[in-house]
């Protein structure tokens, strides 16, 4: 076995040093009551040739771009990843290192994460971003737990236009505790209805997604004012951070915490994970933040260097009083996002963001002209809801056969929205692709 370097002679000489007769003898401390009686029944070992064949076979049955034109977003987005990102990200010094507990020999990861914290905080218009969370959903759940800690109140209001899976994760995280979650309905224009908010007492946080699950840009300024009037924090979430290349950032509109999914920033879709939980807030809240933080300091010779810091918030120091139990996060994905944002630059992210918006607008307008109903009139980014004619399921299946995935049906998530589909367009779709889609839909 090529991963196991021991020769028989070495094993024999090591057993002699250890004072054991055989490899099995090493396990004398394992009592019979804990032992396996037989071997493990697993498939026979594969060599690289057979493994490659087997895995390629599995992979080939899955629909993926560019062969398929996938107009689904809903929390996972197809964006072009510059070759530089996977190339640099495969540097084994980044890939095969552990959490940077020993800073002197981890300065590469530490500086990269400090850069990630800086760029992601700038993107969200906030002062401090942590070293990453697992994904957008758990980042939102942790943000709400943090708001409950900060305000010492017991209730949170959650927009029904937050990604349904994110809301489900929030419920899971809060289930064992006595906190109350109130779901806010949405308005006919596709934004969250905040009118019932003022009746909610003991409010710790208002949670809103923008752009929301329907792609609609929410009035975060109005949400912030309302939340703050009631002594609550505004927690915003997002699934498409590229929007903030042109759309005002949550921090600039008054969000106290912004926590969402960063997969769009140079990370492959990978059937939903690993992605990147981004978590940012104001410095006044930093000691209540979950997750790791990298800080700038100096070494014994006064030279600039980086360390993990404010660890007294964390599980390995504060134990059960920690701000979170998170330990391993999605560090390598954060480094990928840093590389991606570095490639884009200030002008690149503006141009790319505008192009994404314009392509989606093109498809939206074409579908509208073709007689489809655009369900919500508010401005959107990258995604929008279309009411399809009754019986569209058949056409949807026919389009699959033509290697087109015509959006995501919303009925599962919003039973009232029968025949409504959520469409997503990014820079990866050409005008020609979209013209073909419209032609197929109306034909």
């Amino acid at each position: 076995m090529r991963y196991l370097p021991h020769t028989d002679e070495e094993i024999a000489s090591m057993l002699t040093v250890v004072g054991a007769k055989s490899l099995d003898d090493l396990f004398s401390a394992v009592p019979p009551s804990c032992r396996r009686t037989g071997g493990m029944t697993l498939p026979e070992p594969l060599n690289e040739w057979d493994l490659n064949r087997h895995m390629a076979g599995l992979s080939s049955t899955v629909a993926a771009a560019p062969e398929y034109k996938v107009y689904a977003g809903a929390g996972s987005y197809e964006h072009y990843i510059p070759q530089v990102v996977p190339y640099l990200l495969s540097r084994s010094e980044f890939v095969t290192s552990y959490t940077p507990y020993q800073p002197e020999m981890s300065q590469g990861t530490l500086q990269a994460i400090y850069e990630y914290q800086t760029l992601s905080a700038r993107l969200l218009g906030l002062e401090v971003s942590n070293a990453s969370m697992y994904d957008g959903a758990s980042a939102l759940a942790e943000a709400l737990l943090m708001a409950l800690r900060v305000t010492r109140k017991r209730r949170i209001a959650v927009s029904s236009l937050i990604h349904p899976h994110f809301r489900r994760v929030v419920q899971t995280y809060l289930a064992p505790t006595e906190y109350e979650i109130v779901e806010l309905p949405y308005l006919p224009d596709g934004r969250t209805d905040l009118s019932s908010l003022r009746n909610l007492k003991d409010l710790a946080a208002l949670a809103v997604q923008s752009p929301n699950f329907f792609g609609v840009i929410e009035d975060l300024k109005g949400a912030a004012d309302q939340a703050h009037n009631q002594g609550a924090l505004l927690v915003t979430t997002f699934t498409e951070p590229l929007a903030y290349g042109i759309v005002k950032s949550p921090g600039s509109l008054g969000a106290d915490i912004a926590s969402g999914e960063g997969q769009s920033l140079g990370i492959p879709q990978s059937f939903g994970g690993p992605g990147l939980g981004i978590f940012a807030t104001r410095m006044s809240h930093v000691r209540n933040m979950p997750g790791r933080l990298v800080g700038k300091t100096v070494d014994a010779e006064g030279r600039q260097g980086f360390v993990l810091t404010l660890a007294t918030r964390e599980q390995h120091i504060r134990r059960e009083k920690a701000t979170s139990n998170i330990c391993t996060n999605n560090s390598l994905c954060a480094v990928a996002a840093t590389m991606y944002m570095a490639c884009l630059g200030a002008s690149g992210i503006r141009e790319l963001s505008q192009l994404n918006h314009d392509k989606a607008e093109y498809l939206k307008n074409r579908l509208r002209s073709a007689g489809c109903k655009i369900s919500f009139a508010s401005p959107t980014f990258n995604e929008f809801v279309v009411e399809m004619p009754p019986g569209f399921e058949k056409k949807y299946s026919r389009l699959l056969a033509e290697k087109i995935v015509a959006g995501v049906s919303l009925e599962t998530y919003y039973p009232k929205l029968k025949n409504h589909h959520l469409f997503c367009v990014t820079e990866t779709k050409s005008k020609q692709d979209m013209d073909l889609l419209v032609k197929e839909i109306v034909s």
Partner: protein
Amino acid sequence: MKDVLGTTGLILNEPLLWEKGKRGRSGFSLPVRDVEVSPLAEDLTSPGPDFPDLSEVDVVRHFTRLSTWNFGVDTGTYPLGSCTMKYNPKINDKQAALPGFSGAHPLLPQELSQGILRLMFELERMLAEITGMDAVSLQPSAGAQGELTGMLLIHAYHKSRGRKPSKILVPDTAHGTNPASAALCGYRPIPVASNAQGVLAVESVAKAMDEDTAGIMITNPNTLGLFEENLKGIVDLVHARGGLVYGDGANMNAVLGIMDAGCTGLDVLHLNLHKTFSTPHGGGGPGAGPVCVKKNLEPFLPVPRVVEQDGKYALFSNFPQTIGRLHAFYGNVGVMIRAYSYIRTMGAVNLKKASQLAVLNANYIKERLKTTYHLPYDRPCMHECVFTDKNQAGAKVMTLDIAKRLMDYGFHPPTIYFPLVVNGAIMIEPTETESKDDLDRLIDALQAIAEEAKSNPDLLHQAPTKCKRRRLDEVTAARKPILAG
């Protein structure tokens, strides 16, 4: 000692990203604009974030230079206790990058995602077989989320029986994340001390285990690298008193093919794919922390679950007692693919061999170093062994100094000051992928350092001297935090 691995070469400086670049540079290739500009209303827009403008060459040199300041398993021996820093096979990264996997949208119609669903289904079955448990959820994104999932399952189980216990037992040799994971579930962790042999005694559990206790979280092998030899008795006792047993499987690399967690009676066990199943740690993640359960907890597993019928695979969410979702989609699938590829490459025979060699390596180090460094529990260990700095105290040399000096010799230090149950702990987990030559080098280095501690302790106090940076001022970093540039 001749031919020391650690040396100094040309180490390049590299500024922060925003200290380089020029406005107007770009490192990104945009597609042709084939649609018209459609401006958003001005009150919604901003000029965008203040990112530095860099060329592609700027970006490539920047991150290449940064990477050279890091040390990974591919660089050298990384005996970080309880972290299982084994070699990460490269073929697994290739599989995860296959277009059908890396390019798959998570909400594809199920008929278009059969291969990846099948892989997840088979991985669940293989992990169930390896652990001896009945059912598996791959959804938790890391070990700590696996722990949280386990606690949520235990909570839901008790709730379904109309019980609401408020406490959970956590031994002093458990992993550091355990108390925080329990607290997220509203449980108050009650510490249980290990005995003079470094393991839990049935009697000490019996004293703490009452009706208001949900169960116990046991790390096995524990963080002293010892097998909990009274495990079966503890499990039976906890069960008899209405509690459940949570197994922290972060140290499973010691017992593949040896231990049957199911027969032992564990109710839930989490695994770390980024430890035992060789997926790279990425400088702090992404990992994956699947949970394996017995039949009694299966109804509560997270949704969606992958199910198989007549050779077709589907995601199914209609389990009324489920604790819900832990992840926006299905967990870290890219990590699952690597672990699947590893298990298919190893097969049963090599997985067991890996555990045997991991345990052999740890015992070899323990025997070779126990006359040099104080060994608080002198008995056969599993995959890791724990020394202390007691023998070096006379020279005013501490564990931290020994760890830092090891860097100058070209090794990553062991885990230090953990477990807390040992003062000045030096916790060494070599893993099975280190050869005897590598171990001998590490042992030579640690022996040389012990000599230096006597003859020239300042060498240790000043260490490291060969890294990119000398020791860093962590106190000021925490007092006056600078967390963004």
